[in-house]
């Protein structure tokens, strides 16, 4: 664990850059992490991020299948929003732990 300053806020991050404490997250932090990955966030991105945060807060395991059935995006759109890392990148930007699911 290390401390990193993202968007002017000191946050605790894992070795791979995932936030350790999801309550330290805000939209500015999301934008900066997304920028590092090369994604520009739109309102649709935030809908997905908020969904992921809600499910994580409720301690539900996340899979892309679940996100695809959330009614927010289908799986194809999810890949378009977060290319090459639909769950990995979206989790990182949402300030939640690295996904542990294989699906």
């Amino acid at each position, binding site marked *: 664990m290390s401390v990193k300053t993202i968007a002017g806020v000191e946050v605790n991050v894992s070795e791979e850059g995932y936030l350790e404490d999801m309550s330290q997250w805000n939209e500015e932090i999301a934008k900066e992490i997304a920028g590092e990955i090369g994604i520009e966030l739109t309102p649709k991105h935030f809908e997905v991020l908020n969904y992921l945060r809600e499910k994580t807060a409720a301690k539900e395991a996340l899979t892309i*299948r679940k996100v*695809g059935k959330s009614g927010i995006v289908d*799986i*194809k759109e999810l*890949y378009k929003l977060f290319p*090459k890392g639909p769950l990995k990148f979206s989790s990182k930007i949402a300030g939640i732990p690295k996904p542990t699911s*294989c*699906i």
Partner: protein
Amino acid sequence: METKEKEVKTAKKEKKPLEKVCIICAKGSLEDVYATLVMANGAVMEGIETNVFFTFFGLEGITKKTMNHLHTATTGNPAMRMPGGLPFPTMLGGLPGVETAVSSMMRKQMEALDMPPVDEFLEMITAGGGTIYACKLAVDMFKLKKEDLSDEVDSIITIGEFYELCDGDRTQIIFT
């Protein structure tokens, strides 16, 4: 001397991530097809270019009629257990209906882990940019047509064409 050591260290640290996987599925039991699908979907989710090639009995996994009703072998499978953990007697596995019942039970348990049925799994893979192929020789042998196969199947190709798809020095071929 010191700089040399440093060079060695940095060389070790440099990662060369996988860029492409080509997965071959030649068997048609539930676990063989799912091993292929999980590995293929996992690769797509990691941003790795993914080609999946179904051949021989593996075609069961992409044939519309059979793909959502795959079976697991209840005879000749020493790892098979009864619910509760006792060994599953092979004689029992040979009784009519047992394989069907065990297979549907396994599918239910997989569903509980959010593992989708085969048709949906194939859609997930292609939605992420993965490509599904069927082997021409096997398709001819089983007298199948393109229409018999899942709509997610891109095309029926020869093994030569498959190898052409496997170019690149960060490509791996996986045979499940």
